[in-house]
């Protein structure tokens, strides 16, 4: 689904000539491919951003998975299953692209399960009602798309290619979420209340998905220069707000920000301050569901160990039979 721009990496002692050539290539909008020379910091930044992105897809399966067995119709059940499955697939595409940078899937997985690697803070919030599934599709996938569309042009070839595929596949994700909200907003009073409560809970965490404010974001500048990122966190966040507020109004739902106001002069919505303490806290591991999410991933990994071993042992047996 998305990475939160928490990346950071230090440069090493690399020949100025190679560095200049590398930057020139980026400036010419040529893609960097796996075996090309690249600065160590570029590689590390990518590994961190891409693995965060992949981890987010994987952990992102869980809050929605929470409603798979309770989806209210056969159609909704199939849509939700297909969507969560896409997320697993997208995690896989990005892991696959990250592995071209010289890390293994096992390493990446270890980093997630030991808490060394981060993933998007949004997935540490619970899905308490069916409307939350609508809100996740509409807002969380909506925010993710804002972030991911520019990543299709990111400078690293394998990342860019996986993002093109992902964006194509995700195009139904936000729409199905908004459609759920539409049905609820036009349904019974209880359904409409359900939709409003979901918007209340997911609005601010969705805005946090774009990462820290530009003035506090230490990595943006270098990532922009390398064309890993194409827009700043605040630019994307504003774009998201501008696009989403009219959608909420169309549903007759209220965005839970009393300071939200259209600004004629700037042509954008002004909005209230994000609770950055909450953001930092959730990133640090103190969100409502951080523990559950990690426990679920660890459990799946541990309970799957004998299956992975068996499959490999079977192959080894076959090989020795053939020999």
């Amino acid at each position, binding site marked *: 689904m998305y990475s939160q721009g928490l990346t950071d990496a230090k440069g090493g002692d690399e020949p100025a000539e190679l560095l200049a050539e590398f930057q020139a290539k980026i400036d010419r909008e040529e893609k960097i491919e796996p075996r090309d020379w690249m600065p160590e910091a570029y590689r590390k930044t990518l590994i961190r951003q891409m693995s965060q992105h992949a981890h987010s897809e994987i952990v992102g399966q869980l809050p929605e998975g929470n409603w798979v067995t309770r989806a209210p119709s056969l159609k909704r059940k199939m849509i939700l*299953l297909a969507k969560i499955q896409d997320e697993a697939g997208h995690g896989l595409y990005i892991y696959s692209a990250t592995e071209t940078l010289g890390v293994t899937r096992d390493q990446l997985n270890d980093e997630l399960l030991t808490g060394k690697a981060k993933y998007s803070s949004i997935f540490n919030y619970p899905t308490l009602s069916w409307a939350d599934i609508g809100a996740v599709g509409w807002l969380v996938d909506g925010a993710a798309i804002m972030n991911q569309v520019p990543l299709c042009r990111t400078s690293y070839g394998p990342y860019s290619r996986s993002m093109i595929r992902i964006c194509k596949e995700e195009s139904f994700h936000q729409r199905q979420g908004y459609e759920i909200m539409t049905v609820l907003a036009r349904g019974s009073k209880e359904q409409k209340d359900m939709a409003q409560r979901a918007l209340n809970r997911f609005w601010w965490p969705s805005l946090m998905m774009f990462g820290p404010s530009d003035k506090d974001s230490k990595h943006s500048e270098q990532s922009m220069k390398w064309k890993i990122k194409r827009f700043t966190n605040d630019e994307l966040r504003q774009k998201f707000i501008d696009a989403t507020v009219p959608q909420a109004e169309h549903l007759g739902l209220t965005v839970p920000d009393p300071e939200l106001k259209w600004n004629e002069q700037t042509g954008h919505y002004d909005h209230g301050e994000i609770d950055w303490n909450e953001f930092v806290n959730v990133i640090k591991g103190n969100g409502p569901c951080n523990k559950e999410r990690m426990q679920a991933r660890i459990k799946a990994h541990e309970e799957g160990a004998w299956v992975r071993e068996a499959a490999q042992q079977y192959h080894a047996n076959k090989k020795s039979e053939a020999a």
Partner: protein
Amino acid sequence: MEPALYQYLLRLADSSLTMGQRLAEWCGHGPYLEEDVALTNVSLDLIGHAQMFYQIAVEVSGEHKTPDDLAFLRDAHEFRNPLLTELPKGDFAYTTLKQYFVDVFNLHLYQALSKSKHQPLAQAAKKALMEVKYHLTRSQAWCERLSLSTDEAKQRMQQAFDDLWFYTPELFETDEAMLQLADQGLIADYSVLQSYWQQQVSDLISKCQLVVPQSGWLATGGLQGEHSEHLGYMLAEMQFLQRAYPGCEW
């Protein structure tokens, strides 16, 4: 309204739905990422089959109902699936072996049903058959991998086999109404299905070196709506929203 055919279609649909629902529980929790995606594909196919069969059931019944009404607004005693399909997901060996038993059954069942004189049923069976062939390729490949590998995997497979084996004869149970449908060329001859199934499964049992358990409780009751305790919980979860907010659109 043709009560016998209607009840039979419910048996098909309920079996697919309960299998698909159990498999969906793996979504996000598979043994590794690639398998997570693969398991969900099978689940999606099965829920799709359920929807198809419910749709035909609705048409046969002539009542103003939808497939969702049948899935979400019937209580456990109205479900017609064999007990095997409603059993909890268990570990990966249990899921795999249960899937294999049902896949072999479905293969022969849909092959026969694709020749049904009831055209909508024949069409649906053809569509389902295509997907079931792939399901079987997968579940068989996994049965072999788990049975002929590590000691732990072998032991888990044998355990699953012991736990599931006596649920399989119920797949072939028939009643008077089904026998009549078979006579009219509308549904399969279940005694033929059973002989195909036994042949194919016994090949796998010997290939996988599994030991057939001596005795156990012989499952029965699905045809009469008498199920295991598990189905009630599955429905309580699956039907929660429709029950808590009656009459709403979703």
